[in-house]
């Protein structure tokens, strides 16, 4: 009777255990460590099954009725069980029971029904643990909020152009969504990378500011009375100002400064124009000098933003507790993939601040070499031979005439003729493409 009851109960318990396992895999990560105990569900189910089997046990008269029915339904066995009359004990109907073949026990057929349920539980246990979106969401929002705060600070200081702002916003949102989906070390790495971008952007602007300031100072340096020299410095200043304009640093410049540089549109497009007359140029230099000084002070404060690096709590990502990890690592040089040398101290969360990693070293101000800035090496007789400006194709043809055509006429395999010919024919028609 037990074998009649228990397999069904065990089957049910295994299915229930499988469902519980799936639920825990989806919603209760904390229960993951205890899930393997669910294999004991059939054993637990055996306890009530034993009691039930005892309660439902066959009575002797039921067994006799079954035996009599299986033996042809003569009823003699039942009659003798009820009325113990010895006169009929030797009757053929009773002696025939000595040849009664017992029913066959079909245990495996019953137990086989449990196999699919056991497989179900096994598969459920093999499922990867799903981290609920709620727990990731808090940290993901935390990461995104930190980045957004930095971005807001940059915007507040007019260090971000609208296009850059839009780009950064999208990237922060992308990082947030990734972190909600899967939160691990890469989430903080992405956050740090984002901060590095901010820092690079600030550095870029700092460089532009510095360049402009240096150009302005060289322009205003006394003793440079040479007109050509002044023109070159003015050109450099113009390039530096354009760079400054493209970085967005001139967007909120004083109105008179913007007017001197050609207006808002010119600044927005990075195509500023320096005034032609010296007076206006001096006025521009004075105005720009004050503006740049003000911006430099602010940038110095902004640079501190990079100090707050991304948070990474190593306790959330426990390392292998064993010194010798499962990759066989532990000793330096013993191979394996790990987070560094086995004897190296890990300093998670104490990384250098962004702006301290690479100390910036001011380089000497760059300048284009002036055509006048040269010294003759040798004086050749006769004047220079001027050549008319040629197109690329005709120059190549002309060059080929003197260079033996070795550079552009190579030996081609016959099968390549058509392809090469087709390419150069097109180039000849549209040489600039």
């Amino acid at each position, binding site marked *: *009777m037990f*074998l*009649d009851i228990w397999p069904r109960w065990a089957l049910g318990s295994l299915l229930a255990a499988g469902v519980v396992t799936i639920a825990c895999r989806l919603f209760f990560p904390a229960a993951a460590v205890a899930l393997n105990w669910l294999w004991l569900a059939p054993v637990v189910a055996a306890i009530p099954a034993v009691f039930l089997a005892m309660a439902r046990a*066959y009575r002797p*008269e*039921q067994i*006799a*009725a*079954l035996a*009599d*029915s*299986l033996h*042809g*339904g*003569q*009823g*003699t066995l*039942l*009659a*003798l*069980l*009820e*009325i113990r*009359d010895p*006169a*009929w004990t030797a*009757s053929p*109907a009773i002696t025939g029971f000595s040849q009664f*073949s017992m*029913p*066959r*026990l*079909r*245990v495996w*057929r*019953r137990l086989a029904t449990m196999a699919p349920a056991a497989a179900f539980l096994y598969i459920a246990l093999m499922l990867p643990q799903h981290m609920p979106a709620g727990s990731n969401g808090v940290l993901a929002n935390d990461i995104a909020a930190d980045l957004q705060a930095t971005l807001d600070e940059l915007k507040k200081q007019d260090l971000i152009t609208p296009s850059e702002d839009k780009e950064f916003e999208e990237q922060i949102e992308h990082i947030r969504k990734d972190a909600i989906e899967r939160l691990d070390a890469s989430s903080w790495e992405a956050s740090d990378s984002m901060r590095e971008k901010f820092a690079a952007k600030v550095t870029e602007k700092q460089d532009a500011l510095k360049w402009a300031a240096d150009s302005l100072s060289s322009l205003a340096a006394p003793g440079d009375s040479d007109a050509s020299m002044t023109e070159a410095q003015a050109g450099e200043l113009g390039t530096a100002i354009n760079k400054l304009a493209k970085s967005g640093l001139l967007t909120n410049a004083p109105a008179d400064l913007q007017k001197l540089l050609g207006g808002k549109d010119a600044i927005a497009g990075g195509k500023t124009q320096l005034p032609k007359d010296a007076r206006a140029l001096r006025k521009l230099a004075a105005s720009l000098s004050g503006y740049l000084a003000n911006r430099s002070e602010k940038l110095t404060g902004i640079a501190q933003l990079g100090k707050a690096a991304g948070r990474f709590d190593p306790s959330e990502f426990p390392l292998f507790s064993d010194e010798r990890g499962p990759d066989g690592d532990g000793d330096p040089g013993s191979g394996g993939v790990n987070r560094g040398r086995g004897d190296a101290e890990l300093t998670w969360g104490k990384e250098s601040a962004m702006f301290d990693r690479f100390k910036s070293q001011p380089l000497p101000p760059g300048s284009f070499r002036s055509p006048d800035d040269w010294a003759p090496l040798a004086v050749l007789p006769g004047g220079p031979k001027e050549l008319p400006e040629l197109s690329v194709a005709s120059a190549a043809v002309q060059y080929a005439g003197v260079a033996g055509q070795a550079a552009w006429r190579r030996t081609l395999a016959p099968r390549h003729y058509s392809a090469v010919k087709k390419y150069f024919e097109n180039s000849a028609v549209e040489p600039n493409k």
Partner: protein
Amino acid sequence: MMEQTKTLLAPEAVGNAQTKIARLVGGLRQVLLGKEETIDEVVAALLAHGHVLLEGLPGLGKTELVKALSRLLSLDFRRIQFTPDLLPTDITGSHILQERDGRKDFVFHPGPVFTNVLLADEINRASPKTQAALLEAMQERRVTTFGETRVLPNPFFVLATQNPIELEGTYPLPEAQLDRFTFKVEITGVERTVLEEILLTRIHGEPPALAPVIDADELQDLFTVVDAVHLPRAVANYIARLVAATHPKSAEAPEQIRNFVKYGSSPRGAIAIGAAARGLALLRGKPNVGFDEVRRIAAPALAHRLVLDYAAKLEGFDARRLIDALLDAVPEVERGLPQTLGAR
């Protein structure tokens, strides 16, 4: 209800009874060739004090079977040919005004029902009013006329016949009447070999002359022995479940019963099975009833007690097929083998 005996019948008693029954059966088999099963059913019903309705086509030996039975039992035998103009008093008898010693008085003239074996030939040809005259006689074994009740002779058997095909001018038996018959025995056609035997042994179709094999006292002894046949509780449980399952609302009723039966068997059906199974067990030389006897007589005892739905006729289901389905659906033992055990 009769009390269960505390001892089984002695083997000698069973043997003696079986011998007497065998003589009766042997005589009937001389008359009705090739109908061993029919004869067993009739004899089992007789031993159960039951009435039998024989249904079959004309010429199959229904009347000869009843006549042979009365001859073999040396019992009083009457035959009533049921016709549409037959009246109840033609069966039960009536009071007739007679003058005796100068006094005029109503004197009761008993009808043919006052006999041991009554052959109600073509019973469905009489009107329901006349058929109903048999109701009290069959169940109570007495007749009441003019407020006077008269007990019928003991034993009293009604063996009725009816033809299942000539239905014009007939009156189908009401359910109450049908329920009083222990068995409805369907007599089918004979096989070719049996027909050859009939041709060779009976020149004019007349059955052989029979001598009585059981007298009235022996028959009473047989009844006593039949009543002493033990009915085990498990078998009684099987009979009860079988009869209960004939009702379409029963939980154990098979699908066919639910679909095609309007009303199932009455408790009288279960009583009939129990009594007739005892008779059949004794006929087989057993002191007790077994599941096998119950299965054997379930169809003749129950088929005529089922009131079928019109859908049964449309689907071509008759009562016999439904009883077969019932026997397949209801297990002999209420609690079967565990599923882990399988019969070899």
